[in-house]
């Protein structure tokens, strides 16, 4: 096998298909230095070890996202230059609430948001998700062909997350543009003009959300916005029968949470759905099984989360000199946690590279992370992805790629595993009553 050192982890080829490189790295050096003060963590066990240990591995200090600079690799986040700082100053004061906070602050916010996205609450959104999926399918079903990314997998989560938050549905195009522009800088290789656009988009999105929160304080519209307005943050959990102390959230805090939900809640699910469909097209025998038995959809989704993790990596900041996997790591170093690599670890999953619907331990993947930051949207993501596939397979059949599957490509992005497009041909299924007539 080619050695891990022979790959450029950041080249277009490696990113299009990182899995050979991942395997080499897991074998040779589960902790591997890739730049000054930057280390990859690639085995399942070490990944979990880091994710659960927030005392030594922090999510603050811009830890989550390093600047991806194309072939040049990753660089620690830098202070924004003055012109960009000026733009950012026009938005609400940034607050560290979820993704960028450590316990105990993180814990306080997290318990509030958990309640609004619990399995019980998410189940209530199921009818809305069905409506959204069906309305989208209506728009292309008579055409017999579609780019599923453009017209379906991108639109389902965008619409559903807006409904979950309780923000106006007539602004979907804006949410999409703001979010895409805001995260564009993470993909690196962006010009200074694009950085300015990105900063402007973050500010516009935050200011829009702040406005929504202020309006909802007077005229509540339901959803997470209203939950967060009414939420009382537990400052001191009483475990022994005394008094709990609580306070409400200010608008800047609520905006910080909403921002993360809106941005993290859209494209990730798009990537999961498109990767899932691609895996099924690559494994037609599984596609046939799933089309017949929709009860297999949850297992298919878990397997796609494992094999094609929509978020491939995330960062952590090292708080003290330590040793990890036998490698000395200095305080202040940055770790890149490769979820997508740990999920293919042969020491954890048998035949790890194989797409299988028979795993009993599939849900132990780290595609949603692990520990305190375990994806707060996981319940919503699982529900809406399941509904999207159920509705799709209920209404169309004979899915075929329009071109060669090998021609399909992913975004050149170090963090996201994102199919650019998924053009398909398909047949419309007869409506259930027509089906009955045909059988007569």
């Amino acid at each position, binding site marked *: 096998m080619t050695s891990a050192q022979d790959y450029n982890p950041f080249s277009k080829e490696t990113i299009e298909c990182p899995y050979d490189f991942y395997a080499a790295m897991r074998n040779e050096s589960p902790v591997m230095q890739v730049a000054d003060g930057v280390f990859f963590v690639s085995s399942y066990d070490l990944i*979990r070890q880091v994710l*659960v240990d927030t005392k030594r591995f922090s999510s603050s200090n811009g830890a989550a996202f390093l600047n991806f600079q194309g072939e040049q690799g990753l660089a620690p986040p830098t202070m924004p230059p003055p012109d960009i700082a000026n733009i950012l100053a026009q938005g609400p004061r940034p607050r560290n609430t979820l993704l960028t906070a450590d*316990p105990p602050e993180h*814990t306080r916010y*997290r*318990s509030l948001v*958990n*309640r609004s996205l*619990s*399995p*019980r*609450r998410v189940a209530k959104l199921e009818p809305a998700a069905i409506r959204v999926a069906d309305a989208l399918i209506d728009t292309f079903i008579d055409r017999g062909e579609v780019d599923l990314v453009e017209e379906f997998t991108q639109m389902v989560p965008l619409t559903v997350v807006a409904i979950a938050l309780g923000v106006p549905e007539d602004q979907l195009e804006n949410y999409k543009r703001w979010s895409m522009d805001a995260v564009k800088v993470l993909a690196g290789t962006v010009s200074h003009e694009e950085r300015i656009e990105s900063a402007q988009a973050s500010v516009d999105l935050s200011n829009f959300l702040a406005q929504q929160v202020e309006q909802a304080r007077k005229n509540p519209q339901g959803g997470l916005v209203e939950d967060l307005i009414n939420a009382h943050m*537990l400052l001191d*959990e*009483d*475990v*022994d*029968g005394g008094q*709990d102390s609580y306070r409400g959230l200010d608008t800047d805090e609520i905006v910080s949470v909403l921002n993360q939900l809106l941005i993290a809640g859209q494209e990730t699910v798009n990537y999961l759905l498109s990767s899932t469909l691609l895996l099924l097209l690559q494994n037609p025998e599984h596609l046939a099984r799933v089309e017949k038995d929709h009860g297999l959809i949850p297992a298919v989704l878990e397997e796609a989360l494992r094999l094609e993790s929509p978020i491939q990596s995330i960062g952590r900041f090292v708080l003290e000199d330590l040793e990890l996997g036998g490698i000395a790591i200095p305080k202040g170093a940055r770790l890149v946690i490769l979820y997508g690599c740990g999920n293919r670890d042969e020491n954890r999953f048998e035949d790890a590279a194989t797409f299988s619907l028979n795993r009993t331990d599939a*849900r*132990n993947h780290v595609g*949603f992370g*692990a*520990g*305190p930051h*375990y994806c707060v949207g*996981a*319940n919503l993501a699982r529900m809406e992805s399941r509904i999207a596939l159920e509705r799709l397979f209920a209404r169309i059949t004979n899915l075929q790629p329009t071109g060669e599957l090998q021609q399909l490509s992913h975004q050149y992005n170090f963090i996201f595993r994102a199919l650019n497009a998924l053009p398909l041909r398909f047949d419309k299924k007869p409506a259930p009553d027509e089906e009955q007539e045909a059988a007569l």
Partner: protein
Amino acid sequence: MKPAIDLSLCMRTGQCFYLHPGYFKEGADGYPIIIKSLTTESATLKENILDCCPAQAIVFAEQQ
């Protein structure tokens, strides 16, 4: 009331012992261990505990 955990559902997310360290702790294998019953009848706390688990692995049983 004492929480119970269905370990066949648990995905080792750690949410229960991070968010409610008074009631759960992490076992050596990453699965949670229950360390305490609810002493106050705080409905909010009970709901918070139930809702923190994405696997719906936590259940409350009336204590005998």
